[in-house]
């Protein structure tokens, strides 16, 4: 007791320092990346002269980056929509019906969360060529559905509780078919979770590089474009593109947090 009282606040100060180092370690690269995206010189390195939006203009004028952006939007949008739809159906089935091997099936649905992206990407590439499909954005969409559907499934499953079950029973009692119950009762009731799941899937798809890199050839997604730009040497252009991706992700995560937190309250 006495020993501790001798330097009051020493522990707190150490804790604060530790925390500052941790956050510095995590966020310094991000800050540097964002900072030098506003560089007006040609190198993303000190000294910083600017700020300027020169490289953002360059990024939005760059055909490869703009194509990559559109492709990423396409892949993110369609793979997230599919993930949420399939995840929702799977969650409904698991939550509402009793059937043999239910636990095993649930485990299999969640399993891709534990499989490495490299394995999924390579597996997809091999299967696609074996089936005679050439690598394309559709293969990437499939890959992203594989890794994101389990997330959507888990988020939906957590929302389908007893209260929802009784509300669904009430709708059924008034004559609604299963299809009608799903779309006019269950889905609207858990809409915030569905939107949050969509945003989360989109964020993950948005900056997923490995599966996209392995399974695309000519039409590529934004992270793949940036990767190939980096091969040609560093430039504030890649910083600008990277910062833009980061901004999009942050915005979507804020939406997720707002929706899921409001649910918990």
């Amino acid at each position, binding site marked *: 007791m006495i020993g501790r009282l001798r330097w009051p606040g020493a522990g707190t100060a150490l804790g604060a320092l530790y925390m500052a180092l941790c956050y510095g370690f995590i966020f310094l690269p991000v800050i540097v990346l964002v900072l030098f995206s506003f560089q007006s010189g040609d190198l993303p390195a000190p000294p910083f002269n600017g700020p300027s939006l020169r490289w953002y203009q360059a990024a939005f004028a760059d055909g490869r980056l703009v194509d990559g952006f559109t492709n990423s939007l396409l892949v993110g949008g369609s793979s997230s929509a599919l993930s949420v739809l399939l995840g929702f159906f799977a969650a409904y089935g698991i939550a509402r019906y009793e059937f043999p091997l239910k636990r095993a099936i649930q485990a299999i649905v969640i399993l891709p969360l534990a499989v490495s992206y490299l394995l999924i990407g390579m597996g997809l590439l091999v299967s696609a060529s074996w089936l005679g499909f050439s690598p394309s954005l559709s293969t990437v969409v499939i890959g992203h559905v594989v890794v994101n559907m389990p997330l959507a499934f888990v988020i939906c499953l957590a929302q389908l509780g007893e209260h929802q079950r009784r*509300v669904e*029973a*009430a*709708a059924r*009692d*008034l*004559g*609604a078919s299963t299809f009608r119950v799903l779309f006019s009762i269950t889905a609207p009731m858990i*809409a915030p979770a569905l939107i949050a799941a969509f945003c989360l899937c989109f964020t993950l798809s948005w900056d997923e590089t490995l599966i996209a890199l392995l399974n695309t050839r000519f039409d590529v997604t934004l992270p793949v474009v940036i990767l190939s730009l980096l091969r040609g040497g560093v430039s504030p252009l890649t910083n600008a593109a990277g910062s833009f991706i980061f901004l999009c992700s942050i915005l979507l995560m804020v939406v997720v947090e707002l929706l899921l937190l409001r649910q918990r309250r």
Partner: protein
Amino acid sequence: MREEAHLVVEDVRKLYGEVVALDGVSLAVGATDYVVLLGPSGSGKTTLLSVIGGFAFPSAGRITIAGKDVTALGPAVRPTTTVFQDYALFPHMTVAGNVGFGLRIRGVAGTEQRRRVGAALEMVGLTGFDRRGIHELSGGQRQRVALARALVVEPQILLLDEPLGALDLNLRRQMQDELLDLQRRTGRSFVHVTHDQEEAMALASLIVVMNKGRIEDLGPPQRVYARPATRFAATFMGESTQFEGRVAERASGQCLLVETPVGHLPVTGNLEAGSQVTIILRPENIRAEAGGEIALGEARVREAVFQGAHYRVLASRQSPAQDFVLRLPPQAVIEPGMALKLSCAAGDLVLLQR
């Protein structure tokens, strides 16, 4: 009094794994009956309601409504609707959206739909609430929305699963009156589940007392209360004094003499001499004076609890021991230890076989 049976439950059994929830239940209900399924939790009353509503399918037995076998039909195609315990309103819809849901499913078009929703809301006293969200309503108002939503599709039978459980006492009394009124106005049969015997007596034209998945007694509330068929029904419907005894002799015809701690009591029944029996007597039927038809001897007051309209008095006597529970008028002067001379009328003694 029984009209032609509308809802018929025939020897229904329901098993959940090893657990027997319903153990051979049979029931016939008229088209305008207010049926109350009464029993403690785990008695199978809610299971019976779900089986009638189509939410659970019986393991054996048959259910017919208006002569049609509905045993295998799901809730969507049964002519029943349910008011759920927690109301199960659609949280993302307005009051009008909730009430109109069943009509939309049935393809009832705009103007007609609005007219019927308006009529249903008027019936439950919620005119003008159409645009309100569910979260803006009080418990009693939600209850009414649930009623309107279930009645607007004109079900042949309305099922109510402990609908008044979440309301406070005053509101519960008020809703009881409104439910009775609704049932009379709509001329439909209501099947209502509760564990509250006062609620059951206030509402029912037919009480079904359930215990351990079986029907213990079934009949109009006056009969079930005054002359319960089993000991369980007797105790669940209210307090009573119970005399344990043995049939001493069969007097003339249906008249038996039963040997009890308070002497030989004459009761009507048809049992062999020597049968073990219980005779029950409701508290309000015990008179604290010697002048009654049958003398029950003297007992000392153990406890007298003032309950507003009456005193609830517990009294007992020694050798042979016998407890009594009775009611005395509120103006009576009662003290513990006082001696009371008790008597009753012969017709109020109810014989139960043990």
